[in-house]
């Protein structure tokens, strides 16, 4: 293949890639216009008693952490935050997790 032909193919290739992705960009813009993001629905206006759905059962509050928790050089406030983050990451209610101890790990240089 000559360099001239290769240059033409390359130019054509760049154009095709741009064309395909611009087409896609337009399609996405149309999609976003047609189906915009909606905030979580606000509480519905009062409905007639007959139509009102049965009141949802109130979720039971967590029963607390199982067992004793030993805090080593850790403030209770920090410990609560750590436990909440772990529960959120694990997608597990806090009352189903057991924390034995939370210890502050100090850096070598600070000892």
């Amino acid at each position, binding site marked *: *293949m000559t360099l001239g032909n*290769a240059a033409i193919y390359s130019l*054509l*290739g*760049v154009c095709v890639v741009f064309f*395909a*992705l611009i087409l*896609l960009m337009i399609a996405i*813009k149309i999609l976003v216009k047609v189906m915009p*993001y909606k905030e979580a629905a606000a509480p519905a206006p009062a409905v007639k008693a007959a139509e009102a759905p049965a009141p949802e059962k109130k979720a039971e509050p967590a029963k607390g952490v199982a067992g004793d928790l030993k805090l080593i050089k850790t403030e209770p406030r920090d410990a609560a935050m750590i436990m909440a983050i772990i529960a959120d990451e694990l997608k597990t209610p806090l009352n189903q997790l057991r924390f034995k101890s939370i210890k502050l790990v100090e850096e070598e240089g600070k000892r």
Partner: protein
Amino acid sequence: MANIGEILARLWETSGFYKMAVDWRQLIMICIACFLLYLGLVKKYEPLLMIGIAFGMLLTNLPGSEMYHPELWDAYIAGTIKLTDIIHEGGLLDIFYIGVKAGLYPSLIFMGVGAMTDFGPLIANPKSLLLGAAAQLGIFAAFLMAIVLGFPANVAASIGIIGGADGPTAIWLTSKLAPEYLAPIAIAAYSYMALIPLIQPPVMRLLTTKEEREVKMEQLAPVSKTQKILFPIIVTIFVTLLLPSVAPLLGCLMLGNLFTECGLTDRLSDTAQNALMNIVTIFLATSVGATARYDRFLSFQTIKIIILGLIAFEFATIGGLIFGKIMYKVTGGKINPLIGSAGVSAVPMAARVSQKEGQRANPSNFLLMHAMGPNVAGVIGSAVAAGFLLALFG
């Protein structure tokens, strides 16, 4: 009574050590395989693939192992034997390689990648697609240079695709256009992907001003679940209608994404992301490594491919950055050009590099989510480029 000396001599002649002494190139390949193993195991360069590739390379170059037979595949391509002959006469790695030849493994890997990818940042900022397109410049720059260096067009196209910074796409295209160069191209692609944190930053700093790097971008618009579900369907329809040859790769990418986004097929999404992806990675990596046999890999062409691969990566970065700078000017400084370099695929490594460089210039800068848009756009862009090259030279 048998002559013990004769028996020992015969044993010696059938051993791999004797065969290696006859052709020293196998020893070199074993050393290269061990070096790649070192890169994967110690330096942690894409270990999930590098270890498999290096071990496949090691197995195929151990004299007498007879696990992979490139001459059988040459005969198959020439049409003198059938696939069933390879199954009967080939070794274990020949059987693994059938999945590469059929384009099965790259497509299945793409399904897993799709299941793991969040296209939300791209839907929130569709202009990211332009950056993903601009970063494909590396593919065509390397293609041109490969032609200049005397490679045939089909091989040049396979070398160029290294600039897409997308391993499965590179393997998919090369297995169809230039299977004899599969090993050096795959190794170059994965090595440079692992080296992106070293390759990109100098170019990023060179092509952008401190003022540009400091730009803080506005928070992305929220994306609805419906938009995320419709996105893979729309992409599949539009791109496949435009370039039917890209359907296996892009179709699998989008199917995997739909599994995740629809929320109804969690089991399938989980399988595509984990079990299936892991199994396919083992087959893909070892069989690609196996194609690096001493009599084919050790050539000046391989060195040229490795150098062209690096050039492809640099040009891809430059393309993304230049378009990023254009968008910075057009939007009146609202877009940080650093996100342009993330258009080279290599998800999410390239986006992380943009984030790191942005934060280096301005510690309160958070570009990661903005860079993810061009990053995933780059995956689509490189697949489109591969489809174009296949349509042209396939």
